[in-house]
C-alpha cells in the first residue's frame, strides 16, 4: 500500500485518450485497429516529401466535447506545434502536438472514491496531438519492424494537477476518465488495444509538509491495475531511497509487472530538447461560440450527473450508483430495466448481482446479454406482484439465459414472454389463499405435537410448518402468505 507512516504521496496523471474519429488527425487514412501492418498509412502518414497535414475537424469537436464535460475553458484560438525528435516510428521526425496554446484549458473531474467521498481533481489542460507508429522488436531477429498504421491517430492528452494522494485515488481518477470519454463517445475505451494510456508523475513528501518532493514519471500504463501497482511500487522505492538517506533523481521509468517494480528508462541528463515551435503547415485552430454551444447542446448526461440522480431520485446508495454508471452501456441497461419495472432498487440488485455474475461467467458484454433489459424488467414486475419468489425468479432467469432475446425487444413482448415462461415452467407462486388455507389446515391437523409446542411459546416451530407447506408446493407458495395463514391457524383463532 502507498500509505506508509510519515509519508504523503503526490500523484499527477497524463492520460492519452485515443479519439474515436474514423480517419486520422491529419490524413484521410482509417484509424481502425488490427489491420495488416502499414496498410492504413497514407503518403501523409508516411511523411513522404511534399505531403501536408490537414486537420480533422472531428478531432477538434471531440476535444471541445471533453472540455465542456470537464467544466474547462475552451481556448478560442489554439496552435499546433512541432515536437522534434528522431525515432523510427515517428515518420516526420517530429510529432504535431499543442504546446503553448492547447485547445482545452483548466477544468476538473469529480471522482467518486471507494469510501463514497467525491474528490475534485484539477485538470491543467488537454491538448490534441498525433500518435506515433509502432516499433515491432519481437518478430525480427536483430532488426526492428515499423508499423505506421497507428501513426497519425488522434490523441487527446489530458494533464491533471498533482491532486491525487494515493494509488487508489489515481486508479479511481483513471476509471472516472475512462467512463467519461466513453459517455462522450470520443474514445472506445479499449485499454488492451491501447486506446487509453497513462503516464503517472509520482513523488512523496513528509506528512504535513507542503513542498513537492522530486518526482519521477512512470510511462505507458494501460490498465487500472498496473497503474495502481506501478505507483505502489514506485512509492515504496522512493520512500526506501529517502529513508536510507538517498535522493530521488528526476527520471522516466517503466513498470515491469512480472517483477512488480519500476525500471529507469532515461534520466533528465539525457532528456531530449524537443525544440518546440509553431507548426507552419497548419493555421491556428479558431473556435467560435456558435460551435461551442452547438457541441454543448449534444452533451449526454455525464457519469457524475447520472450518479447523483440515481442517488437523489432513485434512492440508490453511493456504491450502487457509482457501479451502475461506470459504463454507459450498463447505465443504459439499468435505466431500461428500472423504468420498465418501476423498481429501481430491485433492478439495481439484479443488474449488479445475477446479471453481472452471469455475464462475467459467460465473458459477455452487457450489450450482448441474452436476457434483455425489458425481460429483466418484466421478471422484476412479477417478483413485485408476488407471482415469483426470489427462488423461482432465479430459476426463470436461468431459463431466459438459455434463449436469448433481441436487445430491443419491446416491453409488451417481453412481458408476454415472461408470463408464458412462468406458466410453462410452472413457476407461478401459489398465492391462492383458498388452496393454501386448505393445506395449512391439513398440516396443522396432522402435527398436533408441534402445534402444542408453538402454542407453548416455541415460535421457532413455525419454520417447521412453513417447510412442510413449501415441500408440498415445491417452493411455489408465497412465503408471506403462508406465514400469515399459519399464524392465524396456529393461534387457534377461528377462521
Amino acid at each position, binding site marked *: 500500500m502507498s500509505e506508509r507512516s510519515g509519508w504523503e504521496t503526490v500523484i499527477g496523471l497524463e492520460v492519452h485518450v485515443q479519439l474515436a474519429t474514423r480517419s486520422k488527425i491529419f490524413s484521410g487514412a482509417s484509424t481502425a485497429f488490427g489491420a495488416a501492418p502499414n496498410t492504413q498509412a497514407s503518403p501523409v502518414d508516411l511523411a513522404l516529401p511534399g505531403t*501536408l497535414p490537414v486537420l480533422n475537424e472531428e478531432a477538434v469537436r471531440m476535444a471541445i466535447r471533453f472540455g465542456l464535460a470537464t467544466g474547462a475553458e475552451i481556448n478560442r484560438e489554439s496552435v499546433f506545434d512541432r515536437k522534434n525528435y528522431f525515432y523510427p516510428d515517428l515518420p516526420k521526425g517530429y510529432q504535431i502536438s499543442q504546446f503553448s496554446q492547447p485547445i482545452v484549458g483548466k477544468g476538473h473531474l469529480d471522482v467518486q472514491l471507494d469510501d463514497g467521498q467525491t474528490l475534485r481533481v484539477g485538470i491543467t489542460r488537454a491538448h490534441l496531438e498525433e500518435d506515433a507508429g509502432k516499433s515491432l522488436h519481437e518478430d525480427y531477429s536483430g532488426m526492428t519492424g515499423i508499423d505506421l498504421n497507428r501513426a497519425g491517430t488522434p490523441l487527446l492528452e489530458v494533464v491533471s494537477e498533482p491532486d491525487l494522494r494515493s494509488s487508489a485515488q489515481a486508479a479511481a481518477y483513471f476509471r472516472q476518465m475512462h467512463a467519461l470519454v466513453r459517455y462522450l463517445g470520443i474514445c472506445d475505451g479499449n485499454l488492451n488495444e491501447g486506446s487509453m494510456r497513462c503516464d503517472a508523475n509520482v513523488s512523496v513528501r513528509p506528512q504535513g509538509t507542503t513542498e513537492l518532493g522530486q518526482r519521477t514519471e512512470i510511462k505507458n500504463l494501460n490498465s487500472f491495475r498496473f497503474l495502481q501497482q506501478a505507483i505502489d511500487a514506485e512509492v515504496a522505492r522512493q520512500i526506501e531511497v529517502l529513508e536510507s538517506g538517498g535522493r530521488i533523481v528526476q527520471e522516466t521509468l517503466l513498470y515491469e509487472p512480472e517483477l512488480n517494480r519500476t525500471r529507469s528508462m532515461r534520466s533528465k541528463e539525457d532528456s531530449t530538447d524537443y525544440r518546440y515551435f509553431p507548426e*507552419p503547415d497548419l493555421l491556428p485552430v479558431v473556435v467560435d461560440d456558435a460551435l461551442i454551444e452547438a457541441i454543448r447542446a449534444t452533451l449526454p448526461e455525464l457519469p457524475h450527473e447520472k450518479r447523483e440522480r440515481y442517488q437523489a431520485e432513485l434512492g440508490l446508495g453511493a456504491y450502487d450508483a457509482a457501479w451502475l454508471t461506470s459504463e454507459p452501456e450498463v447505465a443504459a441497461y439499468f435505466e431500461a430495466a428500472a423504468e420498465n419495472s418501476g423498481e429501481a432498487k430491485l433492478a439495481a440488485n439484479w443488474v449488479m448481482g445475477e446479471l453481472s455474475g452471469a455475464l462475467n461467467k459467460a465473458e459477455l458484454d452487457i450489450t450482448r446479454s441474452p436476457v434483455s433489459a425489458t425481460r429483466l424488467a418484466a421478471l422484476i414486475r412479477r417478483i413485485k406482484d408476488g407471482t415469483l419468489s426470489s427462488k423461482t425468479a432465479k430459476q426463470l432467469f436461468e431459463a431466459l439465459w438459455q434463449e436469448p432475446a433481441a436487445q430491443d425487444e419491446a416491453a409488451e413482448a417481453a412481458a408476454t414472454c415472461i408470463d408464458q415462461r412462468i406458466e410453462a415452467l410452472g413457476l407461478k407462486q401459489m398465492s391462492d389463499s383458498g388452496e393454501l388455507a386448505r393445506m395449512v389446515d391439513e398440516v396443522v391437523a396432522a402435527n398436533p405435537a408441534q402445534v402444542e409446542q408453538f402454542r407453548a411459546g416455541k415460535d421457532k416451530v413455525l419454520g417447521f410448518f412453513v417447510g412442510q407447506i413449501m415441500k408440498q408446493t415445491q417452493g411455489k407458495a408465497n412465503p408471506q402468505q403462508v406465514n400469515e395463514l399459519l399464524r392465524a391457524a396456529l393461534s387457534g383463532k377461528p377462521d
Partner: protein
Amino acid sequence: MDPFASIADLAEGLRTRTFSSRELTQAYLDRIQRLDGQLNSFITVTAEQALAQAEAADAQLANGSAGPLTGIPIAHKDLFCTQGVRTSCGSRMLDNFVAPYDATVVERLQQAGMVMLGKTNMDEYAMGSSCENSYYGAASNPWNPDRVPGGSSGGAAAAVAAGLAPIATGTDTGGSIRQPAAFCGISGLKPTYGRVSRYGMVAFASSLDQGGPMGRTVEDLSLVLGAMAGFDHRDSTSTEQSAAELDALRSVRIGLAPERLKVGLPTEYFQALTDAGLATLLDEARRALEGRGVQFVEVSLPHTAAAVPCYYVLASAEASTNLSRYDGVRYGYRCENPKDLNDLYQRSRSEAFGAEVKRRILTGTYALSVGYYEAYYRKAQQVRRLIRDDFVKAFESVDMLLAPTCPNAAFGKGQLVSDPVAMYQQDIFTIPASLAGVPALALPCGFSEQLPMGLQLIGPHFSEQRLLGLGQIYQTETDWHRRHPQLGE
C-alpha cells in the same frame, strides 16, 4: 517554329495548326538533347511521356476541347512531386525517390493540357542562390557559361532563357524564382503566400515556400498562374480564391490605367544598391513607366536591413525540422550496413546531404534549441512582423513598389561558394517580400556587361493582377524580354 516564342504565340500556332503539339514538344526535346550538355538545366527529361501527353493534347486540339494552355510544353522544378517520375530535389537523398502522387501544381497544369518536358536542376532542397548546390552538378548561365544561372530555380531559368522550354515552374522561398529570372533575363513571379498550393512541393521553409511561373513574358506568367493558383484542401495554408479572381489573373491585357498608379521607390533598397549599371537601368525603367503616366514616390521600408538575418534564422529553423523525415528509414538514401539506429541516421544523413543543407539544418536546430529559441527564433518572428508591417504601411500610400531584384548581375561560378554570408546577401532585395508574404514580379530591365539585369515589382497581398498588369505595360514599352542568348550549337 521559334523556340523563343511566347506561349501565347505558341498557343496561337497550335490553334491555327501551324504545328502540332507533338512537333512542338519534339522540337524542345531536340534542343534539350542538343544543347543541355552546356547548361545542365535538366535533371530528368521525360521524352516518352512528353510525346504521349503531346499526342493527347493534339487530340483535344482536334476535337475542340482544348484550353488556352493545351499542348504547351513546360518544365517543372525537380521539387514538384511527379507521379512515376523521380523527384530528386537536387539531392542525393532523393536520387531514388519516385512519388506516388502529383503535386497540386503539376496536376493542375496537366489538367490544363500542358506537356511536361522534364524536371529542372536546382540547389539541393532549394537552398542556394547559384544552382551550384546540386547533387547533379551545377547549372550554367546561358548568357555566359562561366556564370551561375542563380538559384535555387536555376535550371528552370536557364532552360527558359536558352529556349529549351517555353515556360517553367519554380519555387521561391527567399528569391529562388526572382533571382535566377533576373540572372537569366527572363520573367518570374513569386505569388502571394497562399495563392498556390504547396501540396507535393518538397518543403524547404513551409511559411515562405511558394510556387510560381517563370517565362518569357508577363502575359505567359499570367496564363500559367491562372491555372496553377487556387485553394487546395490538401494545403491548409492555401487561400480561397473565386473563379472570377482566377480568371482575372489570366487576362492582364485588359484594363489597367497606368496614369492612376502610384509606385513607391523604397529608399533603403536604392541606398543599398551599389551597382551603378543597375541603378541606371532602374532609372530608365522608371522613366519608361513615367512615360505611360505612372507616378513615382519614395517610400521607406525601415526594417529592410534586418530581413536577411531574420530570414536565415526562420527559414533554417523550419528547414531543420522539415528535413528530419529524411532519416533513411522509409525512403530515400540509406547508408550501407548501418551498425545501429544512430549509425543509420548519422551516416544516411551525412552521406546524402550536401554542405549547404547541413549548414542550414545546424543553424536552424541551434535557433530552436532551449536557451536560444528566445534570442533567435522568437526574435526573428518579431522582426518578421515588423517587416510585414513596413509593407502594409507602404501600401497605404502606394499601389506597388519598384526595386532591384538582385544587387548585381550573375556572379561567377565558384565565386561565392566559400563565403556563405556573401552568398546570403545576394537575396537582400528578394527576402523582404518573402517574409511579408506579398507577391513580387521579376522582369528583365536591360544588360550590364552582356549580362541581364532585373527589376522587381512588389505589391500588396493578392495584388498579382495589378503587378502583372503593370509588368505587361512595361514589356510593351521595352524589349529586354525579347532578347535571348546565343548558344554554341
